[in-house]
């Protein structure tokens, strides 16, 4: 019998702890596949965040470091500068990368650190039980914006990839999503490019991935995909926002 699909060796045998319908699992699989396909499992050092993905060191087959909340990019910087021969990536949520760790993200981008950041934006703090995130949409109800995010008092969602396009050291910035097979394929393409850019030593690469949180959004998994498509996608800048000039990209 012909095998048409197997679990990638980039992931361990440990079952995911993620809620039903959460798309972290899909993103993990894509990264695991790329670690395997690009022959990076023995060369990679991943940095786990604090948040829903805070246990991802158990899932990826490579060496992993668990960082404090928001500090993954600083930890990755320390690791990469110590071992420039290694492939170093961070896996972070929106709170980790765009709120408490915003300074670390932007500063690492400015320095053009040769690391890759995967930024999973589900517009909410999942791990702590559904509080407002820096990326929560205006009007979005969360446990700390129970009447909906009010832009006057709580401000606007932060579009981190868009900001990073303005930072010279960030050479590859993509904003993708995982609500459909087509979108998942695009996401894998963006991740592959981001990883290759690090391997080529070009600078900081950043992939933002719009993701779902049915549990804390209070919807079922199918509705969650619809919410991502109809509410989140119109708000955030999407696509390959910045590609290296060498490739003849936009280089914004």
């Amino acid at each position: 019998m012909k095998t048409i699909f197997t679990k990638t060796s980039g992931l361990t045998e440990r079952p995911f702890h993620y809620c039903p319908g959460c798309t972290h699992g899909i993103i993990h699989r894509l990264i695991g596949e790329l670690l395997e396909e690009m022959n990076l499992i023995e060369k990679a050092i991943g940095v786990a965040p604090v948040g829903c993905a805070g246990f991802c060191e158990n899932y990826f087959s490579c060496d992993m470091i668990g960082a404090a909340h928001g500090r993954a990019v600083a930890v990755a910087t320390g690791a990469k500068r110590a071992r420039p021969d290694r492939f170093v990536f961070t896996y972070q949520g929106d709170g980790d990368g765009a709120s408490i760790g915003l300074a670390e993200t932007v500063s690492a981008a400015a320095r053009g650190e040769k690391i890759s950041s995967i930024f999973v934006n589900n517009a909410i703090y999942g791990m702590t039980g559904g509080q407002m995130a820096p990326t929560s949409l205006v009007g979005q109800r969360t446990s700390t914006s129970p009447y909906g995010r009010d832009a006057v008092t709580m401000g606007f969602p932060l579009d981190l990839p868009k900001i990073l396009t303005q930072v010279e050291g960030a050479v590859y910035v993509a904003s993708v999503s995982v609500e459909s097979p087509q979108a998942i394929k695009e996401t894998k393409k963006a991740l592959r490019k981001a990883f290759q850019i690090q391997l080529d030593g070009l600078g900081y690469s950043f992939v933002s991935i719009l993701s779902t949180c049915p549990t804390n959004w209070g919807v079922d998994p199918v509705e969650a995909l619809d919410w991502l498509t109809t509410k989140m996608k119109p708000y955030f800048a999407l696509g390959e926002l910045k590609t290296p000039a060498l490739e003849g990209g936009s280089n914004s």
Partner: protein
Amino acid sequence: MAMLMKGNEAIAEAAIQAGCRLFYGYPITPSTEIPEYMSKKMKSSGGTYLQAESEVAAINMVYGAGAVGERVMTGTSSPGFSLMQEGLSYLFAAEIPCVIVDVMRSGPGLGGLGPTQADYFQLTKGGGHGDYHGIVLAPASVQEMVDLTKEAFDIADYYRNLVIVAVDGILGQMMEPVEFPPYQGRKLSPKTWAASGAEGRPKNNVISYYLTPDLGESENLRWGQKISLMKESEQRFSEYLMDDAEFAFVAFGTSARITETAVDMLREEGIKVGLFRPVTLWPFPEKGLSARLPQIKGLMSVELSSGQMVEDVKLIVNGQAPVGLCKRQGGMTPEPEEVVDAFKKQLLGRGQG
């Protein structure tokens, strides 16, 4: 051959000689010569100097480099050291060896640039969360800054624990003759635990959490055993004229240098005093001090703070003798005469003149 060197620069040179090839830091007075020296010398030493965007980032870069198994250091001064406290807690829990230099300046708040020892609590009791300890080395001369910094890296690797070199602004800024003798290090095991890339071995995770209370307790008990071992094995002190002393001063760093002169002055008057100088602030050298207690009629802690170390001295003395305190704060240092006067008032029951 001895050369004249500034304390901060001597620390940086000693670190490079100890095999430290990574320095991450954020400039702050009075420790800036450390990053400046590193930025000048790391390149030719085949290492990396990186100016972080903050002390918060710096200590987490240290965490990353230590986690992959490399020798790494940062240097800062008190307000920056405050910002690093979260990192210290994580470094301890993840058992990542590293060296942190705190060149203390006066506080609280932005404070001033003058010398102080008022980080003592933060250094020895843990400014971060949870039950943890770093080994704290407190040199009192530029030469000792060199010797202890070199050793600090070995101690850190040996225990897989953070080691802090704590000096005040005077020691960081002053120049003294210094030598860099060859250093015979400890025998160390290879860092098989490091997350350096899983080439030809099972993967490693370097993490600092546990999700169940029973695991939390067993991890804390395991760390507690390490703390006990460090406490048992790493206490260090130095004594000056203690053999026949009836009274003991307890002081470290710059205040110990001042107190040494006060001891000489009191000895000239025929009063049998000596100086007990902790070289490790944590573990506090309680064995050495306890051993002196039978001969001691009274003790005086001399500190550049409101009196922080005096609490540890009192714990060890445990009511067996009176314990006095001579202190200056906010960047001021006492004259030896002030120490003599405080001693006479508080321990001999008579004032000067």
